[in-house]
């Protein structure tokens, strides 16, 4: 009888401990995007601390705020902080991609009106003057820090959301959570497990925003997507989107409609998704390999391609595994 009681007790304990209920936060806003958070084995304090970390990051990396990026754009020198670290990675990627990934695109983004929410086709002269000050060579590394030359202006939007996911995940870890999922716009960070299971991340269909084109089962990594179906407008019978080619100043058209990158570094997952979108599928493969990242490409015709490292974690109606 005593044994029976013990078994009962341990069963109940196992049930209570192993099935920690998730704590879901409200939808909040930072980095120009919506932030959602769910943690296992932690609660509201943990989510609040994570959001504070994201807000602090935003202050330093958003050109709209007053931190590092704003200082650089106003001609000052910066030699530390979150923005500094992302800029160092960005310049390396700018070199690796032959200029396809470029954070000095802010004048181009402004010329197209993508920063104002009222996008339009820029006048040729406006585009030419923006292009004249675009280029990673305008980011100068000196003994006292980084500064911008030639009137260049930087925008870390293509890195910030992924970096924000990492800030949140670092907070979950530090606070002893057993699992967590954070989404900042189209970037996702996953950490630990949900009661022993990995996380299921839907890749939004570029053709129907309520539908998933694929599902990735992952943990302890970061996922970001760049898609031409976001922030687009129609003018003169043509479609224009926000992923600009820094060499032409025009939206990239290479047959891709979205690129999803999985990488162990949050900012890099975000940066690589932009870089790969601009470079196209073939040229992206060696780049992904160099950064130990993997990707899922969706073509405008709906065909899906997955790098071989990611293939075991992908559920998708039909896809081709890349060599």
């Amino acid at each position: 009888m005593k044994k029976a009681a013990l078994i009962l007790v341990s069963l109940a304990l196992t049930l209570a401990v192993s099935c920690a209920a998730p704590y879901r936060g409200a939808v909040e806003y930072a980095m120009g995007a919506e932030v959602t958070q769910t943690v296992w084995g932690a609660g509201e304090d943990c989510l609040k601390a994570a959001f504070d970390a994201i807000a602090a990051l935003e202050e330093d990396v958003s050109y709209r705020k007053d931190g590092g990026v704003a200082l650089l754009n106003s001609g000052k020198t910066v030699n530390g902080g979150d923005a500094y670290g992302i800029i160092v990675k960005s310049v390396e990627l700018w070199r690796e991609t032959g200029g396809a990934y470029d954070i000095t695109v802010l004048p181009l983004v402004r010329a197209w009106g993508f920063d104002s929410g009222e996008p339009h086709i820029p006048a040729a002269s406006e585009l030419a003057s923006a292009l004249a000050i675009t280029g990673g060579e305008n980011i100068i590394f000196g003994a006292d820090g980084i500064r911008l030359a030639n009137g260049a202006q930087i925008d870390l939007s293509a890195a910030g959301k992924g970096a924000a996911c990492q800030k949140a995940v670092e907070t979950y870890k530090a606070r002893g959570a057993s699992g967590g999922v954070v989404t900042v716009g189209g970037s996702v960070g996953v950490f630990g497990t949900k009661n022993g299971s990995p996380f299921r991340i839907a890749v939004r269909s570029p053709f129907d925003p309520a539908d998933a084109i694929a599902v990735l089962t992952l943990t302890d990594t970061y996922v970001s997507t760049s898609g031409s179906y976001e922030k687009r407008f129609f003018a003169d019978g043509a479609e224009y989107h926000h992923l600009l080619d820094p060499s032409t100043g025009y939206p990239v058209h290479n047959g891709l409609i979205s690129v999803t990158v999985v990488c162990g570094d949050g900012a890099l997952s975000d940066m690589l998704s932009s870089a790969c979108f601009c470079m196209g599928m073939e040229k992206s493969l060696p780049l992904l390999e160099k950064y130990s990242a993997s990707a899922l490409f969706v073509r405008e015709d709906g065909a899906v391609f997955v790098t071989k490292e990611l293939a075991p974690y992908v559920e998708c109606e039909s896809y081709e595994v890349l060599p």
Partner: protein
Amino acid sequence: MKTKLFKKADLFIALAVLITGIAALLLISLSQGGGRTAVVEYRGETVKVIDLDSVKEEYTFTVKGDLEVVIEVSPQGIRFLSSPCPDKRCVEFGLLNKKGQVAVCMPAGVSVRIAGEGEYDGVTG
């Protein structure tokens, strides 16, 4: 010789653990099972909570966020009916009726989500 099957302390422990277990089960069933509840939020604050399963007739309401958006509730689900935002991503998202689904109007700071654990833990894109 007669021995006691349970000491008093054993019983207390067993009871305490049983109650914890039942509470955990209840919490899990509350968060996973049952009805669909839509939560409308403005910048992290709950504006409205709607039990979708009790909706018999279609109706709309307005949320005065940073922009004024119109949300439609029907027995089929909930959606952004209209928004003065430039990109209309919120309206394009369409009907939400599955747990875990989220639609957001960024310029208005208004979001709609179906509470509970969904099919997916996160969405990229």
